[in-house]
């Protein structure tokens, strides 16, 4: 990947000049997007309601509550969108949302681990720079209590899947390339890539040998790895030519690393301890070379990978697609923009929160998802906001909030404590519990969260990119008893609240604001009023039916 190394210098230089310029990034982004969106009709800005729903899903991982919606929609301040973005980025939901997002992105639903989730949570609570996170993943430090769980990225991929499926080191190699450098080297495992001229077998083999040298530690309970002593280059052959080749460890985007030679007996910085079974620490750590070399500001593919992924998260399309296929012949749709994002991200010390904020402030992000005319403009024009997949987690929190199922569970736990005459202090902890804490206290809510991941997440190892609804998801929402409960008074507050409204009109307005974050159109108001009027003898059923239809509508299940 020598071409990639050459590119990096220009990025560093560009970084210096961009940082000096006063114009904020979001304004420059809009200029670059709009200058390329010629010949298409650009949609107007989303109205406040659509913007609020979108940005809440993106940065808080859930739809807004009725109170939040009322507050934002009645706010007259000119800068209220910018204020809201800042509030969400520094709010209590942000670390949870980012944890969920990066967990799915990096682990692709291979399984959960508390230490790993703690690593992600801590990083986003403290807004750790991305290169620090990536280095923690690639060269985990078992002595750092907060970050050591990052090793799960590697250890979970080194778990054997049974006798017929040996440990998939090539799969781990591939994922490091895909997820941290945006290059999928899989096809270069056995030969230089046939159709991508810059993916070499040496790149794959040189990265692969770093992980062949890694072992999962058995002496500790948390995810941790150790390395063996690496002394020799690796021999490999192309399946086409059968000529013997060799390589040392290769860092994606940076090149081969020399293997230092130590006297026999001098290889270890820390010797192994047979008593505790603690493995030794070699003086030469290929993982350290990988971590510091790959996750570095000089490494263009590292930076571009993450800014492309964050752009995708906010805008619904990568500047480079597929997200893991950066190479010279797969040009970004907006090359100058990708360079700009990369250089500014480096200039801002890999600050994910800052970049998400700048993206959210763009007109590009804030456009309406409604087509301005008959034609569907190309997605890459960003002339109309692109609808995005709502993750299983976003859907879970949103359904629970909208139906008041969480409120009802809180109420019932509280009642249990009051009936048992528990002290005020304990009752107060329930009143103040976050939604996550509430879920931790309820087996049913916990199971439901797992259900949502199964029914609305992709399978293990399948990246979640586009909106791909499934029949199993539809059947879950149609028939699952936990969903039915969300629509019953007693076990959720939505229908209870609706039954308390004095007029059908008030009930309809409440439904729309609470579930869809908007007002009904006149036509909708009329249609629903006549439906409720016709079924007034069975009002709670009719209201539950309307609520179900809203919850399962496309408007609810995609982020628009």
């Amino acid at each position, binding site marked *: 990947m020598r071409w990639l190394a050459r590119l990096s210098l220009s990025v560093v230089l560009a970084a210096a000049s961009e940082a000096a310029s006063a114009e904020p990034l979001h304004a420059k982004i809009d200029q670059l997007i709009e200058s390329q969106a010629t010949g298409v009709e650009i949609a107007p800005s989303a109205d406040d309601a659509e913007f609020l729903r979108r940005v809440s899903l993106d940065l808080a991982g859930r739809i807004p509550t009725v109170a939040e919606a009322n507050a934002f929609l009645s706010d007259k301040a000119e800068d209220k969108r910018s204020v809201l973005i800042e509030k969400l980025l520094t709010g209590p939901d942000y670390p949870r949302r980012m944890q969920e997002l990066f967990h799915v992105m990096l682990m692709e639903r291979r399984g959960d681990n508390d230490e790993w989730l703690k690593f992600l949570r801590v990083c986003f609570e403290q807004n750790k720079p991305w290169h620090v996170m990536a280095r923690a993943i690639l060269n985990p430090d078992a002595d750092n209590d907060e970050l050591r769980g990052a090793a799960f990225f590697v250890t979970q991929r080194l778990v054997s899947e049974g006798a017929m499926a040996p440990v998939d080191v090539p799969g781990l190699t591939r994922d490091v390339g895909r997820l941290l450098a945006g290059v999928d080297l899989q096809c270069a495992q056995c030969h230089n890539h046939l159709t991508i001229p810059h993916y070499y077998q040496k790149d794959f083999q040189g990265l692969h040998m770093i992980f062949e040298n890694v072992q999962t530690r058995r002496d500790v309970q948390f995810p941790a790895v150790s390395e063996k002593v690496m002394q020799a280059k690796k021999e490999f052959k192309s399946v086409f030519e059968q000529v013997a080749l060799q390589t040392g460890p290769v860092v994606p985007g940076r090149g081969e690393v020399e293997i230092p030679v130590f006297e026999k007996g001098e290889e270890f910085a820390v010797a192994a301890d047979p008593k505790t079974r603690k493995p030794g620490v070699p003086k030469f750590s290929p993982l350290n070379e990988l971590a510091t070399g790959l996750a570095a500001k000089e490494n263009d593919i590292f930076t571009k990978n993450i800014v492309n992924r964050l752009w995708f998260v906010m805008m619904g399309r990568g500047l480079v697609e597929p997200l893991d296929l950066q190479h010279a012949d797969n040009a970004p749709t907006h090359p100058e923009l990708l360079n700009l994002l990369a250089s500014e991200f480096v200039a801002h010390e890999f600050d994910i929160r800052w970049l998400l904020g700048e993206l959210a402030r763009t007109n590009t992000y804030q456009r309406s998802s409604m087509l301005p005319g008959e034609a569907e403009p190309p997605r890459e024009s960003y002339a109309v906001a692109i609808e995005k997949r709502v993750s299983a987690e976003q859907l879970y929190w949103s359904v629970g909030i909208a139906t008041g199922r969480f409120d009802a569970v809180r109420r019932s736990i509280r009642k249990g404590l009051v009936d048992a005459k528990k002290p005020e202090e304990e009752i107060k902890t329930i009143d103040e519990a976050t939604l996550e804490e509430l879920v931790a206290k309820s087996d049913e809510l916990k199971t439901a969260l797992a259900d949502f991941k199964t029914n609305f997440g992709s399978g293990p190892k399948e990246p979640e990119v586009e909106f791909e609804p499934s029949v199993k998801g539809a059947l879950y929402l*149609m028939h699952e008893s936990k969903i039915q409960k969300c629509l019953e008074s007693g076990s959720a507050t939505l229908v209870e609240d609706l039954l308390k409204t004095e007029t059908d009109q008030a009930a309809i307005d409440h439904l729309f604001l609470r579930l869809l974050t908007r007002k009904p159109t006149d036509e909708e108001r009329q249609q629903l009023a006549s439906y409720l009027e016709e079924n007034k003898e069975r009002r709670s059923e009719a209201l539950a039916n309307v609520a179900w239809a*809203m919850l399962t509508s496309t408007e609810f299940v*995609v982020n628009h």
Partner: protein
Amino acid sequence: MNPQFCNSAEHGVSRRRVLGAIGGTTAGLGLGALGGMVQPAVGEELAKSDKQILLLWLDGGMSQLESWDPKPNTRFGGPLRSISTSLPGVHISELMPKTAKLMHHLATVRTMKTEDANHSSGVPKILRGHPKNRGVVYPFWGSAVAKVMGPTKSGLPPYLWVKPGSGGFISKYAGFLGAKYGALALGDGKPPTNLVRPETLSEQNANERRELQQLFNQRYAARRRKGSNEANSYVYDVAEKLMQNQKLFDESLLPDKDRERYGKHDFGRHTLLARNLIEAGVRFVQVTSYGWDTHGDNFNAHASRMPKADQVYAALIEDLIDRGMMDNVLVVMMAEFGRTPRINGSVGRDHWPNAWSLSMTGTGIKKGVVVGETLADGTDVKTEPYDIGAMFHTWYQAVGIDSKKVEFMNGTQPLPIAHDDMAPVKELLA
């Protein structure tokens, strides 16, 4: 223009009528209880067709040398022998004794020559029929058939995919046709959970919910890009159809004799389910068997895999004959390529698109033919090579679709359903 002459504009008009139907919502499923979505009256001729397709896909690339085109006692022949078949003079691998007895019911092509030796790009190329590049993403075969022919009158989803591992709705296979023509994958052949409506939800409420949902969706979709709402609506439509066919998925209802004949391994169980899905009226069923990428230890791998494929294929053909289904079901067994004659350092065979084989039978196909011949050592074709595009023409023709006339509509742009420079292989057509 002289009205006496048959002018092409008139053909254009009549053809466009068919195209309009295909470009419309022929594949929209009747919704029964809702009544809101009506099967369009146009295009009924195609929709009424009772032709169906069953594709057995050997993912990773089955070796032609250990199956349809053995070359024993040659440089690259490997250790396995060949056996005679029910077709005089035709030999296939000794790993396929059951199929050998049925060769007179099959058509075999031994001169497939395609372009791509990668799995990641080769699989989609073959499954799309490798058409000319028109700047659009072409649909996989099953999605194309779902679009062109729609569901059968059974109303079942037109494209089901039985596979090991997880299931779900795979919309990306539909390419430019739009999400709803994607594959419904039945992971490990299992139906989706929650298929049964709980007693606490009355039929009336269930119906009203769907009608109201439709109302919200229509309003939302009126001003949005098509894809999301199509996909979301479609999964609910499919869910309802599957609810009406719950018995199909109950393995305990299958006779033991059938389960023995197909084999209790995944490929056997999944193909038996596929047979039942076809019988129930699914338009296109694909069964995938993974693990054919035998770069190492090719011969032991085929010695273990091939007899299962043999068992499955033979049982299926016998059933189609017994049940009189050969006249309306097209069956194809293939992979994305074959394997190299050259045996590599790991006693494996690598990817080989240059000269490989596939098999077909059923409706519209001539029985008991072997088309094409490879060189004595199998390193290349000796007679005319066939690209997958020619096969697509042949298969469309076999199920009664004129692949030279019927086109997709991508907006206003007509696109051929198979490679425009290629044609059906006449020797394969009955």
